[in-house]
C-alpha cells in the first residue's frame, strides 16, 4: 500500500520578477515500510522535495497524498499537526535543544500533541524511547556532554516519540565519522525492519544510499530514475 503518492508536483520560487522553477513535475510512490534514499547534487531540488514531503512547504501545483490524505492544500496548523503525528525528522546537525537534558529533548514534541499526556507519562515515554536507542544511561545528560553519535540517537528517539509511520533523515550521517555513521544507518535499517517504519534518507553519499532498498535520483527538478527493488520497476512520469 502506498504511504506517499506525489502526482506531478511543481514548485516555483518567486524571486522578484523572475520565477525560478525548482521542481518541474515530480511523481512518485513510496510504499509503506520501504527504506528509500533520495539522491541528488546540490541545487537539484532535493531539499525542496524533502521539504514538501515533510509537510514543511507547500507545492505550487500537484497532489501530495500522505497516508491516504491529500495534504498539499491544507492550512499550516493542519500541517503542523500532521508533522507532529505522522512524520519524524532527523537532521544533519541533530538540532537538539542546548542545555536541555536528553529526556526533555525527546519529550519535547509531546508538548504539541493534544494534551492527554501528563508530564509524568510523557517522561516515561521519552525514557522508553531513549532505552530503545541504547541511551538508558544518558537520560539526564545535556547535548554538550554527548558524542555526535549519541546526539543523533537522541534525535532519532525524538523523531520516534509519537510513533510516526514515516521518518525523514536529512543527511543523518553528514556530521558523523564512518564508525558511528554505520551504527546510525544500522539503527535505521533495524527500525525499518522491526517496526515497519518507512524511512526516507536524503543524502549525496552513494555509500549511505546503498543501505536503502531503493534509490531515487533527482537532477534539475526531475526524477531521473528510482529503482524499485521489491516490485517491478515503476515508470516514473516525466513532466
Amino acid at each position: 500500500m502506498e504511504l506517499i503518492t506525489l502526482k506531478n508536483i511543481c514548485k516555483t520560487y518567486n524571486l522578484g520578477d523572475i520565477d525560478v522553477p525548482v521542481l518541474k513535475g515530480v511523481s512518485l510512490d513510496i510504499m509503506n515500510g520501504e527504506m528509500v534514499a533520495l539522491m541528488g547534487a546540490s541545487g537539484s531540488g532535493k531539499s525542496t522535495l524533502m521539504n514538501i514531503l515533510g509537510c514543511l512547504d507547500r507545492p505550487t501545483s500537484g497532489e501530495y497524498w500522505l497516508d491516504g490524505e491529500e495534504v498539499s492544500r491544507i492550512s499550516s496548523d493542519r500541517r503542523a499537526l500532521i508533522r507532529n503525528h505522522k512524520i519524524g525528522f532527523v537532521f544533519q546537525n541533530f538540532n537538539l535543544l542546548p542545555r536541555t537534558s536528553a529526556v526533555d529533548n525527546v519529550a519535547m514534541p509531546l508538548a504539541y500533541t493534544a494534551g492527554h499526556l501528563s508530564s509524568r507519562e510523557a517522561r516515561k515515554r521519552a525514557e522508553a524511547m531513549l532505552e530503545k536507542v541504547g541511551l538508558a544511561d544518558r537520560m539526564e545528560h545535556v547535548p554538550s556532554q554527548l558524542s555526535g553519535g549519541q546526539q543523533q540517537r537522541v534525535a532519532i528517539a525524538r523523531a520516534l516519540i509519537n510513533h510516526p509511520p514515516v521518518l525523514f533523515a536529512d543527511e543523518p550521517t553528514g556530521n558523523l565519522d564512518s564508525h558511528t555513521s554505520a551504527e546510525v544507518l544500522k539503527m535505521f535499517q533495524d527500525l525499518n525492519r522491526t517496526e515497519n517504519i518507512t524511512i526516507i534518507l536524503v543524502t549525496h553519499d552513494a555509500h549511505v544510499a546503498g543501505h536503502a532498498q531503493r534509490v531515487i535520483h533527482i537532477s534539475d527538478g526531475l526524477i531521473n530514475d528510482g529503482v524499485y527493488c521489491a516490485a517491478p520497476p515503476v515508470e516514473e512520469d516525466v513532466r
Partner: protein
Amino acid sequence: MKLYVVVKNALRTLLRNPMRAMLTALGIVIGVGSVIAMMEIGSGSSEALKKSISNMGANMLMIFPGMTSTGGVSGGMGSAQNLSPEDCEAIIRECPAVRTAAPTVRVRVQVVRGNRNWVPNQVQGTTSAYLDVRGNTIEEGSPISERDILNCNRVCLLGKTVARELFGDESPVNQEVRIKSITFRVIGVLAAKGANMMGMDQDDIILAPWTTVKYRIAGSSMTTANQSQSSSTSSTGSTRGVLYPSGSTSLYPEKSSTQTANTPLTMRFATVDMILASAVSPEAIPDAIKQITALLRERHRLHPQAEDDFSIRDMTEMTNTLSSTTKLMTNLLLCVAMISLVVGGVGIMNIMLVSVTERTREIGLRMAVGARSRDILLQFLVESIVLCLVGGIIGIMLGHGGAILVALMLGWPVSTSIPAIVAAFMVSAAVGIIFGYYPAWKASRLDPIEALRYE
C-alpha cells in the same frame, strides 16, 4: 498545550541563561521598585500633608448664632444669643461625624502686666477642646482643665505674641497678668502658629476658661455685634458680675432683693458667641454639617418651616486645596511610574528580539516537530510575561524594603499601599504582554524551513 507546561518551560528556558534573565528583568525591577517606593513614600507624605492641613483647620466648622434686629437695626451675623454650652456638649455627644467641639466667648480687652500693656487680637473663653480643634499645642505649662471651667478659675494661656509683648524673654508661666483689672495666673504658653490664611496673627491670643471670660470679664462679649447698637442685652445677668464690676456704667438703679423677687427675670441660660467643631475628616464635613443642623434645630425647637437660628461655616477653600494637592501628587507619581515602566518594557522587548534571533533554529525545530505558530507565540509571550512578573515581584519587594529603609533612616512618613502593589503587579504583567507581543509574533511568523537552516 497546557498553560502550566508552557510556564514551566518558560521558567526553564529563562533559567538556562540566568544572568541575562536577571539583567533583562532589572529594568522592570527598577521601574516597579521605584514606583512602589515612591508610592509608599508619596502616600505617606500626602497623608502627613493632609494631617498638617487638617491642623490648619481644614475640617473645622464654625457655628454662629443667628442674627437679631432691634427696631430695624440689624445686629448682623452672630448677634443673637441662642447658642449655649449645652448645645456644644450635645454636639460632641450626639454627632458621630464630629470629633470634638469647643464653645467660645470672645472679648477684646486690655491686658496689663507691670508697666506693659497690650490688647490681644482675641481673648477667647473656651474649653481644652479648643486646642484640639484649632490644632494648637502647648509649648510650656498645662492646658485649661475641667475644674478651671467649673470654678471660673482665673487662669489663662498666652499666645506667643502676647507672651513676647508682656514678658519679653521671661517665661510667663505661673506669673500674673491683669485682664480688664482682674488678675489671672498664666498656666501655659501656646506654641507659635504664625499667620493664618487671611494674614491674621494666630499667636496674638489669650485663652481662658469660657466661664471666667463670660462671668468675670465679659462686659460686652459682642465683638462680633454691631457696636453702635448698645443694648442692655449685653449684660449677662450673672450674679458673679457683681463681684467684679464690668466697668460699664449701670443705666438703672440697682434693684433691691424685694424688687428682684417681685419681678423675676425669665431664667437666662449662658450663651456663647460661637461653637468651633472639628469633623472627623475633611470628607466628613458635609455629614457633620447635616448632623449639627438637625441636632441644633431640635434643641432650639424650631418649626420645620422656620429658618435656622444659627449658621454653620466650613473651610471649603482649604478642603479644595487639600484635595487638589493630593490629586496632583498622585498624578505626578503615575507619570513617573509610566515612564520607568516603559523604559523597562523596551528593555524586555530588546532582549526578547535578540532571543528570538538567537533561537531561530529552536523555533524551526519546534515547528518541524509540530508546533503551530500560536504555540510559538504563546511560548515567547509567556516567557516575557514571566520575566516581567518575576521582575515585578522583586521590584515590589525591593521598593517596599526601600520605603521601610527610608522610614527607618530618615524618619519620613511611609504608608504601605496595597492598591499600588496590586497595580504594579498587573502593570508588569501588562508590560510583559505589550512589549513581548511583537517579538513573539515575529517568532511565530518564521518559516520553519528558513529557521531550520539559519546559522
